[in-house]
């Protein structure tokens, strides 16, 4: 593996919600690094702050204090427009709920980041179709999400997260709504398609079955990263058990 360079770096990151009696501190000084070229898993019990952390990392939520850098850019310090542009060009998202637009076909859904960047619909949808083919959905490209299985929807979401070649892909519980086999195949596609030397992937999960795909596993609890486990990733995770 290449000598790694940090893709995401969080220093003393804090986030609280509410104030007065209702104030809760969800992130309590997070120190966290994710390396480029790696799949970093974020593991921890429900409610420990994982979603909050990746929301802050992705620039969807402002932190209360501390620093986040993504490939050297302090996203929080950018002006709002620049932040949106940064997200649009450098970030990809995969959600537990897929969050596909029900009115758009698979290919159109996957094309949204390109459309947002001003690519002509024909070209954008064409490129999305190509990528869906690589993810094994060639024959479902013109289907609406409501007629796709959960695994297929998540693969469409994966295509949408990757189509614009983002530097950082953030996934929150991408396999939680899927059965074991489907979850594993989605994870395999994610590991295969999202990884690149200059790209990092962060996956929040508490699905231990997919851990064999990880390069690094960050353990989180009670608003802090307890430690990072650097694993020797197995070469063929799908057949590893």
């Amino acid at each position, binding site marked *: 593996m290449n000598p790694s360079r940090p893709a995401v770096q969080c220093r003393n990151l804090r986030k609280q919600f509410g104030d007065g009696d209702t104030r809760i501190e969800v992130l309590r000084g997070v120190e966290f690094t994710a390396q480029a070229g790696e799949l970093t898993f974020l593991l921890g019990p429900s409610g420990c702050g994982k979603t909050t952390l990746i929301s802050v990392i992705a620039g*969807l939520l402002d932190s209360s204090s501390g620093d986040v850098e993504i490939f050297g850019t302090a996203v929080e310090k950018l002006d709002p*427009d620049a932040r949106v*542009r940064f997200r649009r060009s450098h970030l990809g998202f995969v959600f537990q709920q897929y969050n596909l637009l029900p009115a758009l076909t698979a290919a159109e859904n996957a094309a949204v980041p390109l459309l947002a960047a001003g690519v002509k619909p024909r070209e954008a949808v064409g490129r999305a179709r190509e990528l869906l083919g690589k993810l094994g959905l060639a024959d479902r490209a013109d289907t609406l999400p409501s007629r796709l299985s959960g695994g297929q929807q998540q693969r469409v979401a994966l295509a949408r997260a990757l189509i614009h070649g983002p530097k950082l892909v953030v996934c929150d519980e991408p396999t939680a709504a899927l059965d074991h086999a489907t979850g594993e195949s989605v994870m395999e596609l994610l590991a295969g398609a999202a990884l690149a030397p200059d790209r990092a992937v962060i996956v929040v999960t508490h699905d231990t079955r997919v851990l064999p795909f990880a390069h690094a596993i960050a353990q989180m609890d009670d608003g802090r990263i307890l430690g990072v486990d650097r694993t020797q990733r197995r070469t063929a995770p799908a057949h590893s058990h």
Partner: protein
Amino acid sequence: MNMVAWKMLTHERAKYLGLVFAIAFSTFLLENQTSIFAGILKRTASQILDVTDAEVWVMDPSTQYFEETKALRDTALTRVRGVPGTAWAVRLFKGIPVARTETGRFAQSIVLGLDDATLVGAPRKMVLGTWDRLREPDSVVIDRAGYLLLYPGQPLQLGRRLELNDHAVTIVGISEAGAPFASFPVIHTRYSTATRFQGLERNQMAFILARPTPGTSAEALCTSIHAATGLRARTSAEFAWDCIRYYLKNTGIPVNFGITIAIALIVGTVVAGQTFYLFTVENLRQFGTLKAIGIPNRRLMAMVLLQGAAVGAIGFALGTGMAAVFFDVFRQQVATRGIILMWQSVALTGGCMVFVVVLASVLSLRRVLVLEPAIVFRA
């Protein structure tokens, strides 16, 4: 992203149609009610607007509108004729005798007695016969709607005899007089004929019709007549508006229509606005996703406005189409003749709909704009 906005809008057929029809129906109601309102108010001035050969109406200072008149003295005519700038001035009788057919059907009617010599004020739109036959003794011209009221279901036919306050007359023409406010027959006859069946009140010179000399404006002549005689003198347009204003001010019509129009507006606004608002709110998660992906607020704004504009335009077009068909059908009916879909109604309704759509868009946009994109990670 316009494609995305359009697909979002039309994806759920039922909601989309609900939105379009809410706007279509409130458009229809508004155009319909405002046009009928205006049409009915305009009827209060029909008999004024029908007179095209005179431009100035002179009346007793206490006469405020067409229906209720105080008779002028006979000397008034001479005095008006003496006012410089008057090309000519003639008298106009107005009475409301009961018209009775040979079979005993009767109806109160509006009788206009025209200057015997000139027949100024005679109806120009004739359905049957000619107005100059009014020169024949005891002859009248009746309007088509009045004829149909007195002879329901019978063919239009000249030569029938009518009694006006027990005074026999012959129908020599059928006119297409402007529909009066009350659905009375409109009967034209000569001044000398009219006075004969007016029984008790001998003098019934309600108005003097005048025309200014070339080079004198109607307004200027009104001013001179008033100054010289103390009588009230109005141009046709002024007098027509006087009548409309009188009814607006002194009758329940504007209140009644106002209520209907307000209800149409409120129902339309609330239903259309609320449906659209809910539509956007239900799609908040989708907007949140787009936000997370990096679509800036101004693009989302454009999407919502496009959705609003599309629904508004389609609904408005549909509603206006329905109104056009409605008025086209009812224009042919006797009772609703002359009531048309006015462009002012369409424009006004269009303005209301733009307001509704913009308001609903802006309200729902607020929700989109303050939306925390991090919600997309929440279940």
